[in-house]
């Protein structure tokens, strides 16, 4: 266990992430999601179209990726920015254990602040249905895949939030919808594919089959995490102003 995950790294990461001011942002997308779901349920209690469209579109292209972006760039990137990462790296702990531990914390926090709210919103909108189960399963997958991507981005660049936002808006938001075939390279579509395999609902706008979504999702997660480990192993401190 401790070869893959390091409990001390996880504990420090959790406390550091939750003690930053940024932690206040974690809950905002979820509050909006649940609030609007409640509002729609109150005004259109019997409609069947809005739950999959709203929870799928707003949930999977705004709430999940944004929450994962804020958390995923926070767990490792914030420590690289302020220099405190050096205290973890000046020990013999394997760099892979640092990356995996931080990734695990990010996934757990994203599940708490985005996947569980998706589940709650689904319950509010449709009750304990297949749609709710599918959306929750898809949200769990999104928490894993998006965080792998954002943890990698935060090791590779100091402008992780800007790069992550650009990726979300341009790639996930624009190209995936405009260019056919791009959905095979979209974390959002992998999660929707998994959601749709349970929910079977065309309003989710899922384009990928379950097997494609799972295989590609696993590959993207593994590759991005491997790149993050590689980059952290070559972590360099800037010298004096030269």
């Amino acid at each position, binding site marked *: 266990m401790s070869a893959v995950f390091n409990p001390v790294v996880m504990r420090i990461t959790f406390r550091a992430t939750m003690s930053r001011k940024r932690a206040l942002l974690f809950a905002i997308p979820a509050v909006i999601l649940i609030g609007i779901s409640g509002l729609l349920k109150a005004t259109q209690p019997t409609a069947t179209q809005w739950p999959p469209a709203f929870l799928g579109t707003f949930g999977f292209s705004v709430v999940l990726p944004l929450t994962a972006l804020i958390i995923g760039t926070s767990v490792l990137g914030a420590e690289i920015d302020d220099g405190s990462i050096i205290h973890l790296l000046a020990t*013999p702990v394997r760099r892979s254990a640092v990356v995996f531990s931080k990734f695990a914390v990010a996934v757990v926090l994203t599940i708490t602040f985005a996947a569980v709210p998706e589940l709650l919103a689904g319950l509010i909108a449709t009750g304990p249905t297949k749609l709710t189960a599918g959306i929750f399963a898809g949200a769990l997958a999104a928490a894993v895949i998006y965080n792998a991507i954002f943890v990698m981005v935060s090791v590779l660049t100091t402008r992780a939030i800007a790069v992550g936002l650009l990726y979300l808006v341009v790639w996930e938001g624009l190209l995936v919808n405009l260019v056919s075939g791009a959905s095979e390279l979209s974390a959002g579509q992998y999660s929707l594919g998994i959601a749709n395999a349970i929910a079977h609902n065309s309003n989710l706008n899922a384009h990928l089959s379950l097997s494609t979504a799972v295989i590609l999702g696993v590959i993207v997660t593994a590759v991005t995490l491997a790149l993050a480990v590689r980059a952290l192993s070559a972590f360099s*401190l800037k010298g004096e102003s030269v």
Partner: protein
Amino acid sequence: MTAIELRNVSRWYGNVVAVNDISMTIGPGVTGLLGPNGAGKSTLLHMMAGFLEPSRGELTVGGRPSWRNPETFRILGLVPERDSVYSFLTGADFVRATAKLHGLADPDAAMGRAIGIVEMAEAQDRKIATYSKGMRQRIKVAAALVHDPEVLLLDEPFNGMDPRQRLQMMDLLDGLAHQGRAILFSSHILEEVERISGTIQVIVGGRLAASGDFRAIRRLMTSRPHVFLVRSSDDRRLGAALIGRPAVNGVELSPRGLQVRAADYGAFTRELAGLTRQEGIRLRELLPADESLESVFAYLIAS
């Protein structure tokens, strides 16, 4: 034992050479890495700790390259310059967590010992956020010492410390060196390390400018020619009296006062007070005119 060995190590960033062909060996005892800001000290320390890849040359710690080798930290402790610690932890939590990251068998005992060495037991249960600069520096040293490393690297450990904290830190480093450890620290202020005994390596412009026994280099520095600006109740008479002294090479009257070129810093400063009293002249101001670090280091390179 050779703790750290550098053979023809260079590091450049694009066209800028930060460290230029440096070879040195660091053994047990205290070694000061001295040089003005931007000389390449941090670059050197970062390479030693494995946080920067040498562009050329060989660098080993305990006989093995430190780049991409976290195992180096089994025998190496690093006190980074940046003051970014996990301020939400208490001092004890921070040092204990570091002990666990090292996989020590008894993290609590190791924490207690390390905190004892830096004399921080009283404040160990306070959050690091409440610590003064000197206390933060000491808790960082405790964390770096928790696994009892043979080699300790400290990047500008005296920065921002008051004189008393500085003396404590120097005594601490001396004590650690007496236990047989290799202690290497960097500093850009020569005067602040005067109590340290050991070796120094002077880095200027990315090159090794001087190295050797600390006292010898210190003597070289204090006996170097100095220019002072002196203002007194009678500059002309004081000038005449000064030029008769062997410690003085030249005197020039200027509207701002008397420019004195002293041949020997130590002798001149000792003699000046007695001379003015003897002549009945009142001394109003004494300013070293060329005390900039650059002139000190330039002198060192020239000799």
